[in-house]
């Protein structure tokens, strides 16, 4: 679809828009295992990828899916998987492998209520901290949250771009409401979509040092088979890629992983503001809850409550600066979430000026309604 020269108007659900975004970003490999409410991503990928000479494979489980997309990426093909809560838990070990080997890939988690099998067909935002800290060890990661079909397309492109640019897995958190809501989407012409590809080495192979530091902290990445034979391991490795136990090398390696993300903070941390210019109360929301929050803020304005909305598009690295400015500007902030307060804790963590922070949570598999948010705003 994205091949057309002019924008194309289509009616898509969020899951389908993620597929179209991924294909527009150059994704040509998908490995997955079916799970509600993410299955439509697999289904549409199985139709679309072979049309584009890409490959779809249904693996035996989510562990295998994650392994396969890392393998495909190492061989030079942009790759993705999609799952929901329980499947995301299974992916965590190999997700860590992608972090330590700096392998670009995109993982979509259409969140459902948990723990365990939880709520298979209901929305939730319960996996925010799992996305950040699910795999073991200290490591940075990029987590984006989608709130609409438009977001699903645009942010999937951005997810691939960030993943390629920083050589880091990027997680897209969706939820059942976004996944299955159908909206009109103008798919932009392919030539208007900015697509970023990883930087390949241009040194002679014998000079290639696969994990050599540079000003960006992101080493060029060779593909398997292109002449830059080197070793890739999940063990902490020296710049040449071989396991090391040297404390200095270990620290230098891990610090570089963090530094490359720190260096890119300004473009990684994305937020959107609505009616925030003169706001005295901020609603800080992400995912489908943003939509209820938007409605609530408009209603609040109609009743002369100076409320505004900031949508956290990037959840991690947490957009500290954007939130900090809001917390300085406003006398109070409301954080509605479909969990017990995973992001409100982050907001509190960066609240150095004592802004009054209020939580609004639902953990019953139901969305937070505009009226609930408005009612809370009225009391603040």
């Amino acid at each position, binding site marked *: 679809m994205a091949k057309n020269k002019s924008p194309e108007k289509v009616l898509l659900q969020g899951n389908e828009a993620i597929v179209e975004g991924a294909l527009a970003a150059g994704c040509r490999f998908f490995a997955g295992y079916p799970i509600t409410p993410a299955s439509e991503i697999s289904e549409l990928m199985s139709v679309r990828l072979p049309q584009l000479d890409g490959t779809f494979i249904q693996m035996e489980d989510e*562990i*295998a899916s994650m*392994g396969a997309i890392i393998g495909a990426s190492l*061989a030079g093909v942009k790759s993705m998987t999609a799952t929901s809560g329980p499947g995301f838990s299974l992916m965590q070990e*190999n997700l860590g492998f992608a972090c330590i080997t700096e392998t670009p890939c995109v993982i979509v988690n259409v969140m459902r209520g948990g723990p365990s099998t939880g709520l298979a067909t209901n929305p939730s935002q319960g996996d925010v901290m799992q996305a950040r800290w699910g795999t073991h060890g200290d490591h940075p990661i990029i987590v984006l949250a989608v709130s609409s079909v438009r977001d699903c397309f645009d942010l999937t492109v951005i997810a691939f771009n960030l993943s390629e640019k920083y050589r880091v897995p990027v997680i897209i958190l969706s939820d059942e409401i976004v996944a299955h809501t159908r909206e009109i989407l103008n798919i932009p012409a392919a030539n208007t979509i900015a697509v970023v590809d990883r930087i390949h080495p241009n040194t002679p192979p014998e000079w290639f040092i696969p994990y050599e530091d540079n000003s960006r902290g992101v080493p060029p990445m060779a593909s*398997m088979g292109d002449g830059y034979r*080197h070793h890739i391991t999940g063990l902490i490795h020296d710049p040449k890629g*071989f396991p090391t136990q040297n404390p200095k090398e270990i620290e230098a390696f891990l610090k570089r992983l963090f530094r490359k993300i720190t260096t890119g903070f300004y473009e990684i941390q994305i937020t959107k503001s609505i009616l925030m210019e003169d706001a005295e109360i901020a609603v800080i929301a992400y995912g489908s809850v943003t939509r209820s929050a938007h409605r609530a803020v408009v209603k609040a304005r109609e009743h002369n409550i100076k409320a505004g909305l900031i949508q956290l598009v990037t959840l991690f690295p947490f957009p500290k600066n954007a939130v900090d400015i809001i917390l300085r500007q406003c006398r109070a902030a409301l954080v509605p979430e479909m969990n017990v307060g995973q992001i409100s804790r982050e907001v509190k963590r960066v609240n150095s000026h004592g802004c009054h922070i209020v939580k609004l949570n639902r953990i019953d598999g139901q969305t937070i309604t505009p009226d609930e948010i408005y009612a809370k705003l009225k009391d603040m």
Partner: protein
Amino acid sequence: MLNNSEKFSHDYLRHDKKFPHVWCPGCGNGIVLGSLIRAIDSLEMAKDDIVLASGIGCSGRLPVYVDFNTLHTTHGRALTFATGIKLANPSLNVIAVMGDGDATAIGGNHFIHAARRNLDLTAIIINNQIYGMTGGQYSPTTPYGSKASTALYGNIEHAFSIAELAVTAGASFVARGTVFHVKLLDKLIAQAIRKKGFSVIEVMSNCHVQYGRRNNMGDPVTMMKWLRDSAKNIKPDGSMDSESEGGSFTIGVLADLEKPDYIEEYARIRQKAKELKQ
């Protein structure tokens, strides 16, 4: 003029790195490494076109030493990474080296599905009948009654026959060899790599430190003799001697089938997808 062994070490080993290797003196892993290199050399393959992937464990360290595209993955998952690599770039020859625990315990599910899927990969499974690196705990191939650090009273679980499992699961090519019968092993590995479709070679090996020590087979020489005496060639008619656990086992080619591999099948899918789109 370099002799053969110098030629191999010069051409294929990462000689400026990471030697001496990590394996115990007398370990069979080095023999498998040698066989693999000789097999690859006999096939005259370009080093750039070879990917050697491993899981975790003693065998997992094998890729470090060779000058190919090498990948040391997570425990049990080598075949899943290999699947992604092969599908992304079918011109690569992807070989996965695993241990018995790696391939058939934690990786058991991936192993049977890789065989069923028949993607053109080569799986070399080094079976030393024990978890070596973690300290001699019993594995899915530890013989019934044997001792292990988690089976001091004798193992009460029954062993997988890896090669036969692979045959049943649908692999195109299945063979079993040992680190004693090295010439045969060279040949089997070469055959397996050349074979299109999923190929499995089970290599019976020795872990004298963790298995032999606990089971009165002590040193590598005793274990080598045990491999020599226990291995029975597969009969010319293809039938096998019946196997008794901890006793004899067959060596040779167990299955060699012609069937389309996954990439050939997927080419049909792509064609169909494009036809339907038009």
